[in-house]
């Protein structure tokens, strides 16, 4: 009789454990996928409570999107590179060089469609140089190649411009960074417009989400990050894919240059200084792994947004930019620590 009770107790416990197990198993993938969005929502709520009148106003929200517009392009490029277990330190310099070339071509009086295409092409070429260097020159790590080009591209940008700002672009050139989509036809006020850069972010992120998740090349990018020798043994041309990835990263930096040209109406030598670190930070906060093969486009977007909202919110509250640095650094460490905990949690099931 006693043993029967014991057995029953044990069964009950087993059942309980099973239930917990299935709950873990059910929750983990969601947490993995959407945990970072949860953090983003919490941040928005906190900022809203702290600044109820301003933070969620139309003007401020569009402002945040305008501010993150060019960083979001760099972050997306760096993200793809990080998925392959690589790194690109040169995106800020690529953007600056593309911007300077744009400015020079614009000053030379080229028609606007040429001026618009030039930075995209220049960015793509810079990325191609990175990709070729990493694969053909067999650099031991992309860190080294892109550290080199970080200096080379910025130096070149300064050489061709003489290190001085070049200002004044036409409206067509500035459209992506500065354009407004009028919403008065929806019954909204004139001040409630949609920034073109916001639409651009949405389109570019969607296109790259499709590319990374639904094309063979995208799948191979993840496979290379997971196990490059497996990718090679599967007949994937790893070098070719890496060259594509770095070229696309450069291309996105070129888009960033075009947006920045629109926003600032000027090509200036300090453009994008240290922005490669912001881009890397956004990827890491968004859940990308330095060891490659892990991370989502949505996560990177959340990472960019978190950094943008943090800066914006702290500015609204008049917190010094020194504190912003401390906070962003802390969030990077915290985000990765949460990721470490999640991994422990995941393997303990």
């Amino acid at each position, binding site marked *: 009789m006693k043993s029967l009770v014991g057995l029953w107790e044990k069964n009950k416990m087993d059942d309980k454990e099973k239930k917990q197990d299935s709950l873990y198993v059910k929750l983990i993938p969601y947490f993995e996928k959407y945990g970072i969005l949860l953090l983003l929502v919490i941040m928005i709520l906190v900022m809203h409570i702290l600044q109820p009148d301003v933070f969620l106003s139309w003007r401020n929200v569009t402002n945040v999107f305008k501010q993150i517009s060019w960083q979001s392009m760099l972050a997306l490029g760096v993200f793809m590179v990080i998925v392959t277990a690589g790194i690109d330190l040169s995106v800020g310099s690529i953007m600056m060089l593309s911007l300077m070339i744009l400015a020079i071509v614009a000053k030379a009086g080229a028609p606007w469609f040429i001026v618009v295409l030039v930075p995209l092409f220049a960015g793509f070429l810079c990325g191609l140089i990175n990709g070729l260097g990493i694969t053909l020159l067999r650099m031991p790590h992309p860190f080294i190649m892109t550290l080199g080009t970080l200096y080379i591209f910025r130096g070149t940008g300064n050489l061709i411009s003489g290190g001085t700002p070049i200002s004044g672009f036409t409206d067509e050139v500035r459209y992506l960074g500065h354009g407004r989509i009028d919403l008065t036809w929806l019954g909204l006020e004139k001040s409630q417009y949609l920034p073109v850069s916001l639409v651009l972010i949405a389109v570019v992120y969607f296109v790259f989400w499709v590319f990374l998740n*639904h094309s063979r090349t995208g*799948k191979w990018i993840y496979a290379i990050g*997971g*196990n490059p*020798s*497996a990718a090679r*043994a*599967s*007949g994937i041309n790893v070098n070719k894919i890496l060259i594509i990835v770095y070229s696309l990263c450069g291309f996105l930096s070129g888009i960033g240059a075009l947006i920045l040209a629109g926003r600032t109406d000027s090509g200036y030598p300090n453009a994008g200084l240290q922005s490669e670190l912001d881009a890397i930070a956004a990827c890491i906060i968004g859940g990308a792994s330095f060891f*490659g093969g892990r991370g989502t486009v949505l996560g990177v977007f959340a990472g960019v947004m978190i950094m943008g909202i943090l800066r914006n919110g702290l500015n609204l509250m008049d917190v010094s930019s020194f504190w912003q640095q401390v906070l962003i650094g802390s969030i990077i460490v915290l985000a990765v620590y949460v990721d470490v905990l999640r991994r422990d949690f995941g393997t303990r099931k």
Partner: protein
Amino acid sequence: MTSTNKLLLEAKGITKYFGTITALENVNLKVHEGECLGVVGDNGAGKSTLMKVLSGLYKPSAGALFFEGKEHVLDSPKDSQNLGLEMVYQDLALAGNLPIGENIFLGREPTKNIGFLKFLDFKKIQEMTSAHLEKLKINVKSAEQKVEELSGGQRQAVAIARSTAFNAKVVIMDEPTAALAIKEVGKVLDLINKLKSTGVGVIVISHRMDDIFTVCDRVMALFQGTNFAESQLDKTSRDEVIGWIMGKK
């Protein structure tokens, strides 16, 4: 029993030099349909080099490869794959961050066209994976499971499934049980037997006499890059094979 079956793969007089080093000299090898050939030899005996020649990774300095009676020159692993000759690597060659199905079809993913763009056909990958795992009686929770969540034995099973997903006729396995827990070794050996029963010719490179004597029909020993000895399995013994590895007859 096997000598009456169709000859699938034959290597004749394979010689491979690396600079002044002779890795293989005049090595011959045969595999028939539904037969498992064990290849044994000490480290440096030339086993891996021979397998890399067979899979098209290395070009032999001399000698010829015949597949189903026809001579072929292999320029890359793609060529050997196209013939139906697959390799299961020792380090498993799987991407842990991808699901089982996507690993099995990695590099050869089915796609569907929408307009002029090609998209991955996840539904087809899923269906083909389930059907293939079913055929080989490999049990996993789902084809969506990531490979890094699997045990060593399950991973090896996935690697073997991957090698046979495209109607392979000959599968070459490099130390298929080396990285496995003892209780999982049996499952992988069962899987090799299942492959044989479907008519696939299997070449197993292994140090483990248990593996050789469980699944192989014939065993050949390499010693210092040459054919040293060969026998039907029922006409030899473990001690004799171990002697061959050390160069004693």
